[in-house]
């Protein structure tokens, strides 16, 4: 059954081709059937492949379909590589992808671009599967750019509004910065190793490069910038909040659950290179820690429910990068998986709320919805609890706890990173409780416009179940140490040696739990018991300034506008005539001069022409006679 691996990305491709080429001729029902069949078959195939992969006992499996191109020994293949890491990513992408497609068939019902939407979505799933299954970096790059393209197309899906188009362009251009760096990283790897086959590079690198050598650091740095761009980490995070301009299922699938974690996948996939460059790995951890705090603070003060979730996504990916940076590979991937479940759930529930409120995004105009939308409320509550890492019962607790624990006790970790993580956990608990309280409690401010149907509620319930039970796949030592997930991952990723005692681990978990409850209590007091308190605090100018600063994402947009965009626009305006055009311009001027001179002879007067003929004849005769 392993040989059916190639079918996993092929079904979404077929779905895309059908919908893109003939989408206009199908009815809405047929479109929904096509897209769900494509995604369903892809999911079934990936499940079958996973089961037979686990049964076969292999740690990796490669399926080369054909050679993509062959240029003097540079021969990247259309080849798929399966190991524990790609199995997990493949499963999450197809599973969450299928549920979000199911949700979208109802959510987008009234949209005129129904076929176009699902064509893009299927193309996205295919690209993402190529990204995580590719056996060489060129093929991976194809998937990498493919998801970038789909992200652009789907952010600007409602293109009649120019603001959406700007958001799409911003996302595309900002991630392009990272992609360019990543391309340079690939060139570097190719010049050093003569191949871009991932497994070969991972085997060759430790033999050819010493730990900390310049080449290793440069290559890791370039890949790191690429990962930062795609995963919206500082300083390339500005595009993600604006990416919320797209339809909500897009935010759930692309800008929360899958695409933005491509950077996590890339670093985990090329972990050998990062281990050879410890300084870069430390940078990854520090940037992750800073990002999770910066984005968390911004999430605290947003009013738009989707923007809260967007900043929270940046913050949670910050946790993953923190884990990658300290070498806790399996903790990072574990957090990726639980985050995919609960963040997709949160976005989808938020989408259901937004739809019920007739496209109102501002949480403070909602309120009191818990009785009206019970299923949405409970699923949203479970998602938020998982995001806030409510101890013991939610998946988010186990994955975040693993990251915090590893950040503290691993050699490359430190108390500072742990402190940043625990502070971030507090902020997370505050903003996720705030989101739930403001949206679902208090008085109802707006009538329900539309109730969610079955195809919206089913994915919510399934994802809510997974947001709880996914955590039991990887229990810490203090709770029995039942960890099939990291056991499985360690067949592909190195095992981080844990040295802490169980007693210390329990202490840390108690601290984390206390922090979570503290955050929830703070939000409860500030937004439920005394709802006037936030407004009262805003009367202090300092707090108000801080709030505005955070609200605008720490003013990164203004900063980039001042240091990149304005100088560029200025230079473009100054150089409107394009200095380089002046070089070929002289040809035009010479031609124009000749034209102007010769034009004077064309008087239109017949006697003038006759005298011209006569003078010419006299000159010719004179030449013949005289010479």
């Amino acid at each position: 059954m392993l040989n059916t691996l190639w079918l996993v990305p092929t079904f979404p491709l077929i779905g895309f081709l059908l919908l893109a080429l003939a989408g206009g001729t199908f009815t809405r029902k047929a479109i929904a059937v096509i897209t769900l069949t494509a995604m369903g078959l892809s999911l079934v195939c990936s499940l079958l492949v996973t089961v037979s992969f686990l049964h076969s006992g292999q740690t990796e499996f490669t399926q080369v379909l054909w050679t993509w191109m062959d240029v003097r020994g540079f021969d990247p293949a259309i080849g798929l590589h399966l190991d524990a890491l790609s199995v997990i990513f493949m499963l999450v992408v197809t599973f969450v992808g299928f549920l979000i497609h199911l949700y979208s068939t109802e959510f987008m019902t009234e949209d005129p671009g129904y076929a176009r939407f699902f064509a893009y979505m299927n193309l996205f799933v295919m690209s993402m599967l190529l990204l995580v299954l590719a056996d060489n970096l060129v093929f991976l790059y194809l998937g990498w750019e493919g998801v970038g393209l789909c992200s652009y197309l789907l952010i600007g899906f409602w293109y009649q509004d120019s603001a959406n188009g700007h958001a799409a362009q911003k996302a595309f251009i900002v991630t392009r910065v990272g992609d360019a760096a990543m391309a340079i990283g690939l060139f570097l790897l190719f010049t050093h190793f003569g191949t871009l086959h991932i497994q070969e590079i991972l085997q060759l690198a430790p033999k050819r490069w010493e730990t900390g050598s310049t080449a290793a650091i440069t290559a890791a740095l370039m890949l790191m910038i690429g990962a930062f761009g795609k995963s919206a980490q500082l300083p390339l995070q500005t595009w993600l909040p604006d990416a919320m301009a797209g339809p909500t299922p897009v935010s759930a699938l692309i800008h929360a659950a899958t695409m933005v974690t491509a950077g996590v996948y890339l670093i985990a996939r090329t972990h050998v290179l990062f281990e050879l460059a410890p300084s870069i790995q430390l940078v990854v951890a520090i940037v992750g820690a800073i990002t999770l705090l910066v984005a968390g603070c911004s999430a605290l003060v947003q009013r738009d429910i989707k923007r809260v979730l967007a900043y929270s996504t940046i913050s949670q990916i910050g946790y993953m990068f923190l884990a990658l940076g300290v070498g806790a590979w399996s903790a990072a991937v574990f957090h990726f998986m639980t985050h995919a479940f609960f963040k997709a759930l949160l976005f989808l529930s938020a989408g259901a709320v937004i739809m019920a409120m007739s496209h109102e995004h501002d949480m403070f105009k909602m309120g009191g919805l818990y009785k009206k939308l019970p299923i949405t409320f409970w699923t949203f509550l479970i998602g938020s609890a998982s995001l806030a890492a409510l101890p013991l019962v939610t998946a988010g607790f186990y994955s975040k706890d693993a990251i915090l624990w590893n950040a503290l006790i691993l050699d490359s970790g430190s108390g500072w990173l742990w402190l940043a993580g625990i502070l971030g956990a507090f902020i997370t608990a505050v903003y996720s409780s705030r989101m739930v309280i403001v949206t679902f409690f208090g008085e109802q401010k707006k009538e329900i416009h539309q109730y969610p149907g079955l195809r919206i509620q089913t994915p919510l319930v399934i994802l809510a179940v997974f947001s709880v039970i996914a955590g039991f796949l990887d229990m810490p030592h203090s709770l029995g140490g039942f960890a099939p997930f990291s056991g499985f991952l360690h067949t592909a990723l190195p095992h981080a040696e844990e040295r802490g005692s169980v007693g210390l681990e329990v202490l840390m978990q108690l601290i984390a739990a206390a922090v979570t409850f503290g955050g929830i209590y703070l939000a409860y007091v500030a937004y439920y018991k005394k709802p006037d308190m936030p407004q009262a605090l805003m009367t202090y100018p300092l707090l108000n300034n801080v709030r505005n600063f955070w609200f605008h994402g720490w003013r990164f947009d203004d900063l980039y506008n001042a240091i990149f965009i304005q100088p560029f626009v200025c230079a473009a305006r100054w150089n409107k005539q394009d200095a380089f055009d002046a070089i070929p311009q002289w040809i035009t001027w010479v031609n124009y001069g000749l034209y102007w001179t010769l034009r004077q002879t064309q008087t239109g007067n017949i006697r003038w022409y006759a005298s011209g003929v006569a003078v010419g004849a006299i000159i010719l005769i004179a030449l013949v006679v005289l010479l």
Partner: protein
Amino acid sequence: MAQIPMEHGLLLAGILFVLGLTGVLVRRNIIFLLMSIEIMLNAAGLAFVVAGARWGEAGGQIMFLFILAITAAEVAVGLALVLAMFKKVKTLDTNVLNQLKG
């Protein structure tokens, strides 16, 4: 019949040609233009005849017959154009016909 020296004949042809050319260059009336061209053609024909007589060749006279034929054709076309021109611009002044200047 006394022989006329070739130089005299060529001189006459030259004078006629220059007269015709001068007519073409200075007259504005298109009828006079056509007549001046006629003089120039005949001057050329005279030069052929004189040269043919000088070397005792029949070619010069044959060429003159050709020139006559061409002249007749030219006059036919030219007069038709003059009629068309007069219909259009109601004048025979060639300076009016300068719409094609660059």
